[in-house]
Protein backbone atom coordinates (compact mmCIF):
# COMPACT_ATOMS: atom_id res chain seq x y z
CA UNK A 1 0.00 0.00 0.00
CA UNK A 2 1.09 3.47 -0.66
CA UNK A 3 -0.19 6.07 1.73
CA UNK A 4 -1.89 8.73 -0.34
CA UNK A 5 -0.32 11.50 1.59
CA UNK A 6 3.11 10.76 0.35
CA UNK A 7 1.88 11.75 -3.01
CA UNK A 8 0.64 15.03 -1.64
CA UNK A 9 3.92 15.51 0.11
CA UNK A 10 5.80 14.98 -3.06
CA UNK A 11 3.46 17.14 -5.01
CA UNK A 12 3.75 19.89 -2.48
CA UNK A 13 7.35 20.36 -3.52
CA UNK A 14 6.47 20.24 -7.15
CA UNK A 15 9.07 17.60 -7.84
CA UNK A 16 6.76 15.23 -9.50
CA UNK A 17 3.69 15.34 -11.64
CA UNK A 18 1.03 12.69 -11.57
CA UNK A 19 -2.13 12.26 -13.52
CA UNK A 20 -3.66 10.11 -10.85
CA UNK A 21 -2.78 8.26 -7.71
CA UNK A 22 -2.03 5.14 -9.59
CA UNK A 23 0.55 6.99 -11.63
CA UNK A 24 2.61 7.28 -8.53
CA UNK A 25 2.67 3.59 -7.99
CA UNK A 26 3.44 2.97 -11.57
CA UNK A 27 6.44 5.22 -11.56
CA UNK A 28 9.63 3.47 -12.40
CA UNK A 29 12.47 2.92 -9.97
CA UNK A 30 15.30 5.40 -10.41
CA UNK A 31 18.29 3.66 -8.90
CA UNK A 32 20.23 6.93 -8.60
CA UNK A 33 17.48 8.63 -6.63
CA UNK A 34 17.20 5.59 -4.44
CA UNK A 35 20.94 5.40 -3.91
CA UNK A 36 21.02 9.00 -2.81
CA UNK A 37 18.06 8.58 -0.48
CA UNK A 38 19.47 5.48 1.15
CA UNK A 39 22.76 7.31 1.58
CA UNK A 40 20.90 10.27 3.03
CA UNK A 41 19.14 7.96 5.43
CA UNK A 42 22.48 6.71 6.66
CA UNK A 43 23.73 10.28 6.94
CA UNK A 44 20.75 11.43 9.00
CA UNK A 45 21.00 8.46 11.33
CA UNK A 46 24.69 9.29 11.61
CA UNK A 47 23.71 12.78 12.76
CA UNK A 48 22.01 11.31 15.82
CA UNK A 49 24.23 8.28 16.34
CA UNK A 50 26.94 9.05 17.07
CA UNK A 51 26.90 12.72 15.94
CA UNK A 52 24.47 14.40 18.27
CA UNK A 53 25.22 11.90 21.02
CA UNK A 54 28.89 12.90 20.90
CA UNK A 55 28.12 16.59 20.55
CA UNK A 56 25.89 16.64 23.60
CA UNK A 57 27.73 14.20 25.79
CA UNK A 58 31.00 16.10 25.55
CA UNK A 59 29.29 19.18 26.96
CA UNK A 60 28.18 17.72 30.27
CA UNK A 61 30.12 16.73 33.35
CA UNK A 62 32.08 13.49 33.19
CA UNK A 63 29.76 11.85 35.70
CA UNK A 64 26.84 12.24 33.26
CA UNK A 65 28.46 11.46 29.95
CA UNK A 66 26.93 8.01 29.62
CA UNK A 67 23.45 9.15 30.54
CA UNK A 68 23.43 11.54 27.61
CA UNK A 69 24.67 8.90 25.22
CA UNK A 70 22.01 6.59 26.62
CA UNK A 71 19.27 9.14 26.02
CA UNK A 72 20.15 9.59 22.39
CA UNK A 73 20.42 5.87 21.73
CA UNK A 74 17.32 4.83 23.59
CA UNK A 75 15.28 7.50 21.85
CA UNK A 76 16.39 6.07 18.54
CA UNK A 77 15.20 2.62 19.55
CA UNK A 78 11.89 3.70 21.06
CA UNK A 79 10.95 5.93 18.15
CA UNK A 80 11.80 3.16 15.69
CA UNK A 81 9.39 0.77 17.36
CA UNK A 82 6.66 3.41 17.47
CA UNK A 83 7.22 4.26 13.82
CA UNK A 84 6.84 0.68 12.72
CA UNK A 85 3.76 0.12 14.82
CA UNK A 86 1.79 3.26 14.08
CA UNK A 87 3.97 6.36 13.74
CA UNK A 88 4.45 6.13 10.01
CA UNK A 89 0.71 5.81 9.57
CA UNK A 90 -0.02 8.70 11.89
CA UNK A 91 2.34 10.85 9.88
CA UNK A 92 1.90 9.78 6.29
CA UNK A 93 -1.32 7.81 6.32
CA UNK A 94 -4.35 9.13 4.50
CA UNK A 95 -5.20 12.37 6.23
CA UNK A 96 -8.10 12.68 8.63
CA UNK A 97 -9.27 16.20 8.07
CA UNK A 98 -5.76 17.51 7.61
CA UNK A 99 -4.90 16.91 11.25
CA UNK A 100 -3.68 13.39 11.52
CA UNK A 101 -2.88 10.44 9.35
CA UNK A 102 -4.77 7.20 9.53
CA UNK A 103 -2.81 4.41 11.07
CA UNK A 104 -2.21 1.47 8.77
CA UNK A 105 -1.60 -2.11 9.82
CA UNK A 106 1.14 -2.63 12.41
CA UNK A 107 4.59 -3.73 11.28
CA UNK A 108 4.07 -1.89 8.00
CA UNK A 109 2.40 -5.03 6.81
CA UNK A 110 0.99 -3.28 3.78
CA UNK A 111 4.38 -2.32 2.40
CA UNK A 112 5.99 -4.70 -0.06
CA UNK A 113 9.27 -4.78 -1.92
CA UNK A 114 7.54 -3.20 -4.89
CA UNK A 115 5.67 -0.40 -3.13
CA UNK A 116 6.94 2.78 -4.66
CA UNK A 117 6.93 6.35 -3.41
CA UNK A 118 7.71 8.33 -6.50
CA UNK A 119 10.88 7.08 -8.12
CA UNK A 120 12.10 5.07 -5.16
CA UNK A 121 10.73 2.30 -2.98
CA UNK A 122 8.38 3.21 -0.19
CA UNK A 123 10.71 1.41 2.23
CA UNK A 124 13.31 4.02 1.41
CA UNK A 125 10.85 6.76 2.20
CA UNK A 126 9.89 5.06 5.45
CA UNK A 127 13.48 4.79 6.61
CA UNK A 128 14.43 8.28 5.50
CA UNK A 129 11.51 9.84 7.36
CA UNK A 130 12.18 7.67 10.39
CA UNK A 131 15.60 9.20 10.83
CA UNK A 132 13.93 12.61 11.11
CA UNK A 133 11.51 11.29 13.69
CA UNK A 134 14.49 10.00 15.65
CA UNK A 135 16.58 13.11 15.73
CA UNK A 136 13.79 15.45 16.81
CA UNK A 137 13.25 14.15 20.34
CA UNK A 138 16.98 13.50 20.59
CA UNK A 139 17.57 17.22 20.15
CA UNK A 140 15.45 17.93 23.23
CA UNK A 141 17.88 15.93 25.36
CA UNK A 142 20.13 18.96 25.64
CA UNK A 143 17.57 20.73 27.79
CA UNK A 144 17.31 18.29 30.65
CA UNK A 145 20.71 16.66 30.91
CA UNK A 146 22.32 15.87 34.26
CA UNK A 147 19.05 15.73 36.20
CA UNK A 148 16.23 14.05 34.26
CA UNK A 149 14.75 10.78 35.50
CA UNK A 150 15.20 8.00 32.98
CA UNK A 151 11.75 6.48 33.25
CA UNK A 152 10.09 9.87 32.96
CA UNK A 153 12.19 10.65 29.92
CA UNK A 154 11.07 7.52 28.11
CA UNK A 155 7.42 8.18 28.85
CA UNK A 156 7.87 11.74 27.67
CA UNK A 157 9.34 10.64 24.38
CA UNK A 158 6.50 8.22 23.75
CA UNK A 159 3.82 10.76 24.59
CA UNK A 160 5.51 13.60 22.77
CA UNK A 161 5.93 11.68 19.54
CA UNK A 162 2.24 10.76 19.54
CA UNK A 163 0.94 14.16 20.50
CA UNK A 164 3.44 16.52 18.92
CA UNK A 165 5.81 15.07 16.38
CA UNK A 166 3.58 12.76 14.38
CA UNK A 167 0.76 15.31 14.13
CA UNK A 168 2.98 18.27 13.29
CA UNK A 169 4.89 16.25 10.72
CA UNK A 170 1.55 15.25 9.25
CA UNK A 171 0.35 18.85 9.10
CA UNK A 172 3.43 19.98 7.23
CA UNK A 173 4.59 17.00 5.21
CA UNK A 174 1.97 14.32 5.48
CA UNK A 175 -0.83 15.91 3.55
CA UNK A 176 -2.11 18.00 6.45
CA UNK A 177 -3.43 21.51 6.64
CA UNK A 178 -0.12 23.34 6.76
CA UNK A 179 1.12 21.72 3.59
CA UNK A 180 -2.21 22.56 2.03
CA UNK A 181 -1.92 26.28 2.65
CA UNK A 182 1.52 26.38 1.09
CA UNK A 183 3.59 26.41 4.25
CA UNK A 184 7.26 26.07 3.36
CA UNK A 185 9.38 23.87 5.54
CA UNK A 186 11.81 22.07 3.34
CA UNK A 187 13.64 19.82 5.75
CA UNK A 188 12.20 20.46 9.15
CA UNK A 189 12.53 23.98 10.51
CA UNK A 190 9.11 23.60 12.07
CA UNK A 191 8.72 19.84 12.20
CA UNK A 192 12.12 19.22 13.70
CA UNK A 193 13.79 22.33 15.11
CA UNK A 194 10.92 24.49 16.30
CA UNK A 195 9.13 21.60 17.97
CA UNK A 196 12.30 20.37 19.64
CA UNK A 197 13.35 23.86 20.68
CA UNK A 198 10.01 24.77 22.19
CA UNK A 199 9.69 21.45 23.99
CA UNK A 200 13.20 21.99 25.31
CA UNK A 201 12.54 25.32 26.93
CA UNK A 202 9.29 24.10 28.41
CA UNK A 203 11.05 21.05 29.80
CA UNK A 204 13.97 23.01 31.20
CA UNK A 205 11.65 25.54 32.78
CA UNK A 206 9.50 22.87 34.38
CA UNK A 207 12.45 20.83 35.61
CA UNK A 208 14.30 23.74 37.12
CA UNK A 209 18.02 24.37 36.87
CA UNK A 210 20.82 22.01 37.74
CA UNK A 211 22.06 22.36 41.31
CA UNK A 212 24.41 25.31 41.37
CA UNK A 213 23.20 26.95 38.16
CA UNK A 214 24.04 29.65 37.23
CA UNK A 215 26.61 30.40 39.96
CA UNK A 216 28.79 27.32 39.65
CA UNK A 217 30.83 26.81 36.52
CA UNK A 218 29.74 23.73 34.58
CA UNK A 219 32.38 23.45 31.91
CA UNK A 220 32.20 20.73 29.23
CA UNK A 221 34.10 17.65 30.30
CA UNK A 222 35.35 16.72 26.85
CA UNK A 223 35.21 19.40 24.20
CA UNK A 224 37.07 17.41 21.56
CA UNK A 225 34.24 14.88 21.72
CA UNK A 226 31.79 17.71 21.15
CA UNK A 227 33.73 19.04 18.20
CA UNK A 228 33.95 15.54 16.74
CA UNK A 229 30.18 15.33 17.02
CA UNK A 230 29.86 18.74 15.41
CA UNK A 231 31.79 17.56 12.38
CA UNK A 232 29.51 14.57 12.08
CA UNK A 233 26.46 16.79 12.31
CA UNK A 234 27.76 18.99 9.54
CA UNK A 235 28.43 16.10 7.20
CA UNK A 236 25.21 14.35 8.11
CA UNK A 237 23.22 17.49 7.41
CA UNK A 238 24.02 17.04 3.73
CA UNK A 239 21.71 14.05 3.88
CA UNK A 240 19.19 15.89 6.03
CA UNK A 241 18.69 18.80 3.66
CA UNK A 242 20.03 17.27 0.46
CA UNK A 243 17.98 14.14 0.94
CA UNK A 244 14.86 16.18 1.48
CA UNK A 245 14.86 16.92 -2.24
CA UNK A 246 13.80 13.28 -2.54
CA UNK A 247 15.78 12.93 -5.72
CA UNK A 248 19.37 12.91 -6.86
CA UNK A 249 19.14 16.08 -8.87
CA UNK A 250 20.05 19.74 -8.91
CA UNK A 251 17.60 20.52 -6.14
CA UNK A 252 19.46 18.12 -3.86
CA UNK A 253 22.85 19.56 -4.52
CA UNK A 254 21.64 23.14 -4.39
CA UNK A 255 20.23 22.30 -0.97
CA UNK A 256 23.61 20.96 0.05
CA UNK A 257 25.37 24.03 -1.27
CA UNK A 258 23.20 26.54 0.59
CA UNK A 259 23.34 24.38 3.71
CA UNK A 260 27.09 24.35 3.64
CA UNK A 261 27.27 28.10 3.06
CA UNK A 262 24.90 28.87 5.88
CA UNK A 263 26.81 26.68 8.32
CA UNK A 264 30.11 28.34 7.43
CA UNK A 265 28.79 31.87 7.59
CA UNK A 266 26.92 31.35 10.84
CA UNK A 267 30.00 29.84 12.45
CA UNK A 268 32.09 32.83 11.40
CA UNK A 269 29.37 35.20 12.55
CA UNK A 270 29.28 33.60 15.96
CA UNK A 271 33.02 33.72 16.57
CA UNK A 272 33.13 37.19 15.06
CA UNK A 273 30.71 38.42 17.70
CA UNK A 274 32.63 36.59 20.40
CA UNK A 275 35.85 38.12 19.24
CA UNK A 276 34.41 41.63 19.34
CA UNK A 277 32.46 41.18 22.53
CA UNK A 278 34.72 39.02 24.66
CA UNK A 279 38.06 39.43 22.94
CA UNK A 280 38.48 35.80 21.96
CA UNK A 281 36.89 33.42 19.49
CA UNK A 282 36.19 29.94 20.83
CA UNK A 283 35.82 26.55 19.23
CA UNK A 284 32.63 25.89 21.15
CA UNK A 285 31.35 29.17 19.75
CA UNK A 286 32.31 28.13 16.27
CA UNK A 287 30.55 24.80 16.37
CA UNK A 288 27.50 26.28 18.08
CA UNK A 289 27.29 28.89 15.37
CA UNK A 290 27.64 26.16 12.81
CA UNK A 291 24.73 24.22 14.27
CA UNK A 292 22.72 27.43 14.42
CA UNK A 293 23.43 28.03 10.76
CA UNK A 294 22.40 24.52 9.89
CA UNK A 295 19.18 24.70 11.87
CA UNK A 296 18.29 28.06 10.37
CA UNK A 297 18.84 27.06 6.76
CA UNK A 298 16.95 23.80 7.19
CA UNK A 299 13.44 25.00 6.34
CA UNK A 300 14.80 27.21 3.56
CA UNK A 301 17.31 24.87 2.04
CA UNK A 302 15.19 23.78 -0.92
CA UNK A 303 13.97 27.25 -1.77
CA UNK A 304 16.90 29.64 -1.62
CA UNK A 305 20.09 30.20 -3.57
CA UNK A 306 23.67 30.80 -2.42
CA UNK A 307 22.94 34.44 -1.53
CA UNK A 308 20.02 33.29 0.60
CA UNK A 309 22.25 30.72 2.25
CA UNK A 310 24.75 33.43 3.04
CA UNK A 311 22.23 35.85 4.51
CA UNK A 312 20.49 33.15 6.49
CA UNK A 313 23.86 32.16 7.87
CA UNK A 314 24.38 35.65 9.23
CA UNK A 315 20.85 35.84 10.59
CA UNK A 316 21.05 32.41 12.19
CA UNK A 317 24.50 32.99 13.66
CA UNK A 318 23.72 36.36 15.16
CA UNK A 319 20.14 35.61 16.13
CA UNK A 320 20.98 32.41 17.96
CA UNK A 321 23.99 33.98 19.62
CA UNK A 322 21.92 36.69 21.23
CA UNK A 323 19.14 34.25 22.04
CA UNK A 324 21.64 32.12 23.95
CA UNK A 325 22.70 35.09 26.02
CA UNK A 326 19.17 36.10 26.82
CA UNK A 327 17.81 32.70 27.81
CA UNK A 328 20.69 31.87 30.12
CA UNK A 329 21.40 35.33 31.49
CA UNK A 330 18.18 37.26 31.45
CA UNK A 331 15.69 34.50 32.09
CA UNK A 332 18.12 32.23 33.92
CA UNK A 333 16.49 29.18 32.41
CA UNK A 334 18.82 26.20 32.48
CA UNK A 335 18.14 24.93 28.98
CA UNK A 336 21.46 23.32 29.61
CA UNK A 337 22.86 22.81 26.13
CA UNK A 338 20.93 25.71 24.56
CA UNK A 339 18.43 23.73 22.56
CA UNK A 340 15.85 26.48 22.38
CA UNK A 341 18.11 29.40 21.48
CA UNK A 342 19.95 27.37 18.86
CA UNK A 343 17.37 25.01 17.37
CA UNK A 344 14.15 26.76 18.33
CA UNK A 345 15.17 30.28 17.41
CA UNK A 346 17.19 28.99 14.46
CA UNK A 347 14.27 27.02 13.08
CA UNK A 348 11.84 29.89 13.57
CA UNK A 349 14.12 32.46 11.98
CA UNK A 350 14.67 30.14 9.07
CA UNK A 351 10.95 29.59 8.59
CA UNK A 352 10.26 33.29 8.48
CA UNK A 353 13.16 34.28 6.26
CA UNK A 354 12.33 31.49 3.86
CA UNK A 355 9.65 33.75 2.51
CA UNK A 356 12.14 36.48 1.70
CA UNK A 357 14.96 34.43 0.31
CA UNK A 358 12.76 32.11 -1.71
CA UNK A 359 12.06 35.10 -3.88
CA UNK A 360 14.04 35.36 -7.07
CA UNK A 361 14.85 38.96 -6.22
CA UNK A 362 17.05 37.63 -3.44
CA UNK A 363 18.59 34.86 -5.47
CA UNK A 364 15.97 32.31 -4.45
CA UNK A 365 14.46 29.56 -6.52
CA UNK A 366 11.13 31.33 -6.62
CA UNK A 367 7.87 31.54 -4.73
CA UNK A 368 4.73 29.85 -6.00
CA UNK A 369 2.91 31.56 -8.82
CA UNK A 370 1.01 34.58 -7.63
CA UNK A 371 2.42 34.45 -4.12
CA UNK A 372 4.29 37.54 -2.94
CA UNK A 373 6.93 37.60 -0.23
CA UNK A 374 4.41 39.09 2.14
CA UNK A 375 1.82 36.46 1.32
CA UNK A 376 4.36 33.79 2.01
CA UNK A 377 5.43 35.50 5.22
CA UNK A 378 1.83 35.41 6.38
CA UNK A 379 1.64 31.73 5.72
CA UNK A 380 4.95 31.14 7.44
CA UNK A 381 3.90 33.16 10.46
CA UNK A 382 0.58 31.42 10.76
CA UNK A 383 2.10 27.99 10.43
CA UNK A 384 5.01 28.65 12.74
CA UNK A 385 2.93 30.19 15.49
CA UNK A 386 0.51 27.28 15.29
CA UNK A 387 3.32 24.79 15.65
CA UNK A 388 4.85 26.70 18.55
CA UNK A 389 1.62 27.10 20.46
CA UNK A 390 0.61 23.49 19.99
CA UNK A 391 4.02 22.21 21.01
CA UNK A 392 4.21 24.48 24.00
CA UNK A 393 0.86 23.55 25.46
CA UNK A 394 1.03 19.85 24.81
CA UNK A 395 4.60 19.53 26.00
CA UNK A 396 3.83 21.30 29.23
CA UNK A 397 0.78 19.24 30.03
CA UNK A 398 2.59 16.06 29.15
CA UNK A 399 5.59 16.78 31.35
CA UNK A 400 3.40 17.79 34.26
CA UNK A 401 1.41 14.59 33.90
CA UNK A 402 4.47 12.38 33.75
CA UNK A 403 5.96 14.12 36.72
CA UNK A 404 2.85 13.24 38.72
CA UNK A 405 2.94 9.68 37.50
CA UNK A 406 6.57 8.61 37.82
CA UNK A 407 8.62 11.71 38.55
CA UNK A 408 10.70 13.59 36.06
CA UNK A 409 13.74 14.59 38.10
CA UNK A 410 16.23 12.53 40.07
CA UNK A 411 16.98 13.12 43.73
CA UNK A 412 19.50 15.76 44.72
CA UNK A 413 21.96 13.13 45.91
CA UNK A 414 21.72 11.28 42.60
CA UNK A 415 22.31 14.52 40.79
CA UNK A 416 25.44 15.15 42.84
CA UNK A 417 26.76 11.64 42.34
CA UNK A 418 25.93 11.77 38.66
CA UNK A 419 23.42 9.90 36.55
CA UNK A 420 25.92 7.45 35.12
CA UNK A 421 26.49 5.66 38.37
CA UNK A 422 23.10 6.26 39.95
CA UNK A 423 20.87 5.47 36.98
CA UNK A 424 23.00 3.12 34.93
CA UNK A 425 25.58 1.60 37.32
CA UNK A 426 28.37 2.52 34.94
CA UNK A 427 31.18 5.01 34.81
CA UNK A 428 32.33 6.75 31.64
CA UNK A 429 36.06 6.68 32.12
CA UNK A 430 38.59 4.55 33.95
CA UNK A 431 41.71 6.33 32.91
CA UNK A 432 43.75 5.83 36.05
CA UNK A 433 45.73 2.88 37.31
CA UNK A 434 43.94 2.71 40.62
CA UNK A 435 42.80 -0.87 40.54
Amino acid at each position, binding site marked *: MLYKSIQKYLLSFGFLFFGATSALIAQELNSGDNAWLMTSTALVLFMTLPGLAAFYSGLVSQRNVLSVLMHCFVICCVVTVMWVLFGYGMTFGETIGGYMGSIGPAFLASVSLDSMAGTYPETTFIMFQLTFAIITPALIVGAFVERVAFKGLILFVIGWMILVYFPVAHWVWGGGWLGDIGYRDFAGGAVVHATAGVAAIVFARYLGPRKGFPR*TPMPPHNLPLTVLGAGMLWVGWFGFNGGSALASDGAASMAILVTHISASVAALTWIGIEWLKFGKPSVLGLVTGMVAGLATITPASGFVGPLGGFMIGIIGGAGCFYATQIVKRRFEIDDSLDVFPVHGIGGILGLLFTSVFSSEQFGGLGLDEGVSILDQLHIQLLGTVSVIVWTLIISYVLIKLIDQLVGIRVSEQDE*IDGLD*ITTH*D*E*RGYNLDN*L*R
Partner: protein
Amino acid sequence: MKLITAIIKPYILEDVRTALSEAGVQGLTVSEVKGFGRQKGHTEMYRGAEYVVDFLPKVKIECVVPDDLTQNIVDAILQSASSGKVGDGKIFVSEVSEVYRIRTGETGEDAL
Protein backbone atom coordinates in the same frame (compact mmCIF):
# COMPACT_ATOMS: atom_id res chain seq x y z
CA MET B 1 53.40 25.68 61.07
CA LYS B 2 50.97 22.87 60.44
CA LEU B 3 49.94 20.92 57.40
CA ILE B 4 46.23 20.27 57.40
CA THR B 5 45.23 17.47 55.07
CA ALA B 6 41.54 16.94 54.50
CA ILE B 7 39.94 14.14 52.53
CA ILE B 8 36.46 15.27 51.51
CA LYS B 9 33.64 14.23 49.22
CA PRO B 10 33.73 15.51 45.67
CA TYR B 11 31.55 18.39 44.55
CA ILE B 12 31.68 20.24 47.86
CA LEU B 13 35.12 21.65 47.24
CA GLU B 14 33.72 25.05 46.38
CA ASP B 15 31.92 25.30 49.73
CA VAL B 16 34.96 24.22 51.67
CA ARG B 17 37.21 26.62 49.85
CA THR B 18 34.91 29.50 50.66
CA ALA B 19 34.86 28.52 54.31
CA LEU B 20 38.64 28.30 54.35
CA SER B 21 39.02 31.69 52.75
CA GLU B 22 36.82 33.12 55.43
CA ALA B 23 38.92 31.43 58.06
CA GLY B 24 41.97 33.23 56.73
CA VAL B 25 43.53 30.71 54.40
CA GLN B 26 45.31 32.36 51.50
CA GLY B 27 46.45 29.35 49.59
CA LEU B 28 45.83 25.67 49.32
CA THR B 29 46.44 22.73 47.05
CA VAL B 30 43.94 20.13 45.98
CA SER B 31 44.11 16.82 44.20
CA GLU B 32 41.99 13.89 43.13
CA VAL B 33 42.29 10.79 45.24
CA LYS B 34 40.29 7.68 45.85
CA GLY B 35 39.33 6.52 49.26
CA PHE B 36 38.63 3.25 50.96
CA GLY B 37 36.82 3.20 54.28
CA ARG B 38 33.59 2.54 56.02
CA GLN B 39 31.49 3.98 53.23
CA LYS B 40 30.43 1.15 51.00
CA GLY B 41 31.41 1.37 47.39
CA HIS B 42 29.38 1.84 44.25
CA THR B 43 28.30 -1.10 42.24
CA GLU B 44 29.24 -1.03 38.60
CA MET B 45 27.77 -3.38 36.09
CA TYR B 46 29.21 -4.25 32.69
CA ARG B 47 27.36 -6.77 30.58
CA GLY B 48 25.90 -8.34 33.65
CA ALA B 49 29.21 -8.65 35.45
CA GLU B 50 28.90 -6.86 38.74
CA TYR B 51 31.86 -5.09 40.30
CA VAL B 52 31.85 -3.59 43.73
CA VAL B 53 34.13 -0.63 43.47
CA ASP B 54 35.76 -0.14 46.86
CA PHE B 55 37.69 2.97 45.99
CA LEU B 56 35.50 6.01 45.88
CA PRO B 57 36.32 9.38 44.36
CA LYS B 58 37.46 11.87 46.99
CA VAL B 59 39.20 15.20 46.98
CA LYS B 60 42.29 15.90 49.02
CA ILE B 61 42.96 19.39 50.31
CA GLU B 62 46.39 20.28 51.60
CA CYS B 63 46.92 23.51 53.38
CA VAL B 64 49.86 24.74 55.39
CA VAL B 65 48.87 27.23 58.06
CA PRO B 66 50.35 29.12 60.98
CA ASP B 67 50.05 27.24 64.28
CA ASP B 68 47.62 29.68 65.80
CA LEU B 69 45.12 29.44 62.97
CA THR B 70 45.07 25.67 62.96
CA GLN B 71 42.08 25.05 65.13
CA ASN B 72 39.99 27.68 63.38
CA ILE B 73 40.70 26.15 60.06
CA VAL B 74 40.03 22.62 61.17
CA ASP B 75 36.70 23.83 62.48
CA ALA B 76 35.92 25.53 59.21
CA ILE B 77 36.48 22.29 57.36
CA LEU B 78 34.53 20.27 59.87
CA GLN B 79 31.58 22.53 59.39
CA SER B 80 31.62 23.05 55.67
CA ALA B 81 32.42 19.48 54.66
CA SER B 82 30.10 17.59 56.94
CA SER B 83 26.89 16.12 55.59
CA GLY B 84 26.56 13.71 58.49
CA LYS B 85 26.72 10.77 56.15
CA VAL B 86 29.32 8.04 56.21
CA GLY B 87 32.24 8.84 53.94
CA ASP B 88 32.45 12.53 54.76
CA GLY B 89 36.17 12.04 55.24
CA LYS B 90 39.01 12.90 57.59
CA ILE B 91 41.28 15.70 58.62
CA PHE B 92 44.90 14.99 59.47
CA VAL B 93 47.16 17.56 61.12
CA SER B 94 50.93 17.30 61.11
CA GLU B 95 53.97 19.42 61.75
CA VAL B 96 55.80 21.35 59.03
CA SER B 97 59.26 22.49 59.90
CA GLU B 98 59.90 24.99 57.15
CA VAL B 99 58.13 26.74 54.30
CA TYR B 100 59.55 28.66 51.33
CA ARG B 101 57.89 30.83 48.74
CA ILE B 102 59.67 29.94 45.52
CA ARG B 103 59.11 33.29 43.86
CA THR B 104 60.78 35.34 46.59
CA GLY B 105 62.67 32.84 48.67
CA GLU B 106 60.76 34.06 51.75
CA THR B 107 60.51 31.55 54.55
CA GLY B 108 58.34 30.82 57.55
CA GLU B 109 54.87 32.24 57.97
CA ASP B 110 55.70 35.03 55.58
CA ALA B 111 55.89 32.45 52.85
CA LEU B 112 52.31 31.26 53.30
